[in-house]
């Protein structure tokens, strides 16, 4: 049990470490965390929450044939997404907390969606590369004989 937990911690570390190293090198070159980075984090979080919520709500609608499309989880998910939309609206319109280099609320929201489309494409392509290379490495090894009877 403990070994399993330690493994998961190591995996999280392995995933985080390269990003932290690159960022640390940037800090050593005079770079640093600025307000725009926080705004980007907040916008990415809220936009991905709402868009993913909409996709999961679509999932509820399209794949609930066998359960006769119950209304309750649909309404529950709709309310959860509505909370995300209200928080987004509040943080963008009040004190410009999440307003980046855009003229207003509508242009910021549209820009967030396109930004998510692009960064999502980058992350999907990176995942394709990592997963594909992992499977290529696994299938690249010659077949192992596990039992003598196999021969």
């Amino acid at each position, binding site marked *: 049990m403990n070994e399993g937990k330690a*493994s998961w911690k*190591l*995996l999280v570390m*392995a*995933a*985080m470490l*390269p*990003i932290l*190293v*690159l*960022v640390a090198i*940037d800090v050593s070159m005079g*770079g640093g*965390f*600025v307000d*725009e*980075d926080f705004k*980007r*984090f907040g*916008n*990415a979080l809220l936009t*991905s*929450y*709402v868009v*993913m*919520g909409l*996709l*999961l709500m*679509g999932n509820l609608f*399209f794949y609930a044939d066998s359960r006769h499309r*119950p209304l309750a*989880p649909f309404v*529950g*998910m709709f309310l959860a997404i509505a909370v995300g939309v209200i928080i987004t609206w509040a943080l963008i319109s009040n004190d410009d907390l999440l307003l980046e280099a855009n003229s207003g609320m509508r*242009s910021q929201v*549209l820009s967030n969606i*396109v*930004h*998510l489309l*692009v*960064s*999502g494409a*980058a*992350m999907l*392509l*990176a*995942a*394709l*590369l*990592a*997963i*594909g*290379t*992992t499977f*290529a*490495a*696994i*299938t*690249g*090894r010659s077949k192992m004989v596990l039992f003598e009877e196999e021969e």
Partner: protein
Amino acid sequence: MDEMWAAAFWFWIPLMLIPIGLYGYLRDSNRKSGLVLALFALILVMVSPWTVPSSDSTAGGHLLLSILGPSALMAYGLYGMVFGGNVPVGRLDSSARWSGSIATVVAIVLMAMMHWGSFTPIWRGDVNPYWIVFWPTFLMFSTSLCALASLALVGFGSERLSESLNLAGLSVVMAGIALTAMFFDGSNTSAEEFRGHLWLAAADIFGTLAGVGASIATFAIVIWSYESNLPTPPTTDAPTDEEVKHVVAIAKSHIGGEE
């Protein structure tokens, strides 16, 4: 047509139609029409810089079109690398492994040339603003995922050290490309600009993962609370003697044979 309606018609509606088409594709009933709808909508999004040039959002479509070639080449290369190896089903010729490796390397080189060479995506006479979003995010996330996969292979697999080292090597190569971009100017973007966007890319990655995680957790809570409030189904009555006799007769009719 009003600019706003033109953008809605040629960019935003096709963008919304992509997931709807994919839902259709994943359903058993109308797979082909769903795939056709998703592909058609994706093409409309990618050609939006020409159909609705006044909209700023079309820079996203332009970038997707720009990276389509290297992405397709990478997908083809990885497919060849995986299925050219030791797989029980759908195995390709062993040469597919080599051609796949070359295709994957060429895809990464093409992307690097989009930064340092003359292939930089140009939109409205300047560098596409989303290119400097895509490139550091791709480099950072692939570095991170390859390191994760490397450790997972050696941690959970048996005798996977050499495969793990290959993946660690790829992670170092991707980190090396990112470091090179941090130190040396690209053809259209400076090293300083790239370093500035590195932070934004990290914020993008962590923000997107946190948002997706929160959404999935919310979905799980909604489904769990609905299912836990459902009434327990009524228990059925025990079988009658007649029903038991019928089942035994069926079972007996299937017992026999040579063994």
